[in-house]
Structure formats: C-alpha cells, structure tokens
C-alpha cells in the first residue's frame, strides 16, 4: 500500500492547551484525515485501521479527542471524508467536553435528571411535562416547553438550565444533509 502519511516523530515542545497546540492539533488531524482517505482508497480496510490506530495513539491519550471513529464511521471513512469535505472531517470527532463550561454544566444537569427520572415519571405532577433543572434542583415545570423557556430566560439568562420532558425516551432527531464545498 502506498502510504501518503508522514508520521510525527517528536512530541511538540509547547504547552498542550495553548492556542498553538490547538491549531497544530486541528491541522494535523485534518492532514491525517485527508491522507487517511488517500491511503484507504488504495487499500481500503488496512489503510483505515492503520491510520485510525496512529491517530488514536497520538491524540486520544491526550484526551484532546474524546472519541474517534465508531465502527460505522470506520466503514464509511473514505466516503464520508470525500463526500463531506476533508476540512470538516475532524470536527466529527471532537467531544462535547471540548466546547466549554456550559456543556459540562449541561451534562451534569442531564445526569441529575436521569438520576431522578424514575421519581418524576411516578409523580403525576411532572409526568409528561417539561421540567427545568438548575444546579441539580428542579426549579420549574410546564406543559409547554417554550413558555417554560421564556420564564427560565427571564430569570436565568446567563445560566445553564436544563429543560427536558419527563418521559421515558429521549427525543430523537436526524440531520442527514451533507453539504458540498464549492
């Protein structure tokens, strides 16, 4: 297999959390994603697995990347990189944790909701209604999520408040629309 990649032999010397590192990380991952696609096109399975392992070894351990390719993505990598545009490919693999404090807080509130979900479902006051959770406390509820959101925004504009329906399953959404770069 012709290998289009050039492995990084040295660790970078600057701070991992610096903007320089972020830029290097992004551009390197983008570069590897592109070369991975070229390699994989020539020898599909081996190229994917080998490249995946390399990226995993070099990035995943730093917890810069929370997850890389799932089995499904593995199979579709060449297609998705080419179809999706190589520039966009790395963003698929950066975890929510990278985004900021608000997402950590949001996750905490979601975990709390899951821990009390059974109690909420057993209570007629809350069952099938939207509840608002802030700082691991239930602060409001309503049958209309937009009305509840308006109240929450008025009181807690700059704070993370989870608004979620007390029901068994989580709502599901697909956004299956690839864009072509021109």
């Amino acid at each position, binding site marked *: 297999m012709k290998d289009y990649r050039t492995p990084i032999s040295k660790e970078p010397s600057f701070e991992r959390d610096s903007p320089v590192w972020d830029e290097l990380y992004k551009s390197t991952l983008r570069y590897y994603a592109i070369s991975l696609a070229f390699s994989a096109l020539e020898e599909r399975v081996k190229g994917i697995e080998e490249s995946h392992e390399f990226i995993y070894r070099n990035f995943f351990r730093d917890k810069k990347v929370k997850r890389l390719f*799932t089995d499904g993505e593995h199979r579709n990598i060449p297609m998705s990189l080419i179809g999706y545009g190589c520039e966009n490919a790395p963003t698929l693999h950066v975890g929510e944790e990278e985004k900021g404090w608000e997402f950590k807080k949001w996750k905490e509130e979601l975990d709390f909701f899951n821990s009390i979900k059974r109690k909420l479902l057993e209570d007629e006051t809350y069952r099938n209604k939207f509840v608002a959770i802030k700082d691991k406390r239930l602060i409001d509820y309503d049958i209309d999520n937009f009305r509840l*959101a308006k109240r929450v*925004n008025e009181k807690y504009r700059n704070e993370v408040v989870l608004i979620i329906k007390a029901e068994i399953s989580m709502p599901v959404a697909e956004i299956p629309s690839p864009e072509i770069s021109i």
Partner: protein
Amino acid sequence: MRFKYSHDVFPPGLILPVRLSIIGGEDGREAKAKVDTGADISVISEELRKELNLLPRGVVSAKGAFDEGFTPSPTYFVKLYINHSFSFELQVISLPTTKYFLIGRDLLNQIILHANGPAELFEITI
C-alpha cells in the same frame, strides 16, 4: 413571500434571510437560513449560537449523515423571524460544520412551501 434560489450553494438552494433571537429577548441577529427537508430539527451554526450567547437548555438524541450514531446533544430555544413579519419559536441544535441556519421540518411543517426548481423560485406562505 417569494425568494430566488441562492447560488451561494451548489446545486442552487432555497436560502432566505431570517432574524434570530433568544426567546423572551429583544436582541437578535440577521442570518441566512437554508431549507433542509431532510433535517428533523432545525440547526443553528455554532458561530451564530455564540454570537447570540445561547446556552444549552434542552436535549435531543441527534445523528448526522455519516453513521456516527445517536448522541445526546444540547438544544437551544430561539425565535426565528421571516421577513420581520412572522415568527416561530424553535428548539434547535448547534453544529460547527454549517454556516447557515438550517430550517428543518419542525418549522417547515408549519408553513406552505412551493419550490419551482427550473424557475429557481420558491414561495413561503404562512
């Protein structure tokens, strides 16, 4: 309201000007919105989300086009204005990979949309 197809995307697409703001807030931003009948839920670009200072409010299990599996994703409550006349309250998700606001079927199912591809014209009736 009639609009021309936009050539900012290829193939030409249904893109219209909208205004977005937080629900219960007055401050807003102009944006370009692309009609996306394949999207179950509307999508705000990460850039615009930050500009509007929208914080995570809800949750939806979301999945993209490339078999990456369903992942719990934060949602945001926004008010969308078309033509400064009509408004819709929406619960949307944010994606860093789009520069447009994607109008999904959560909004599309509330309006009448006629698209004339050969003439590159589309019309929205509320």
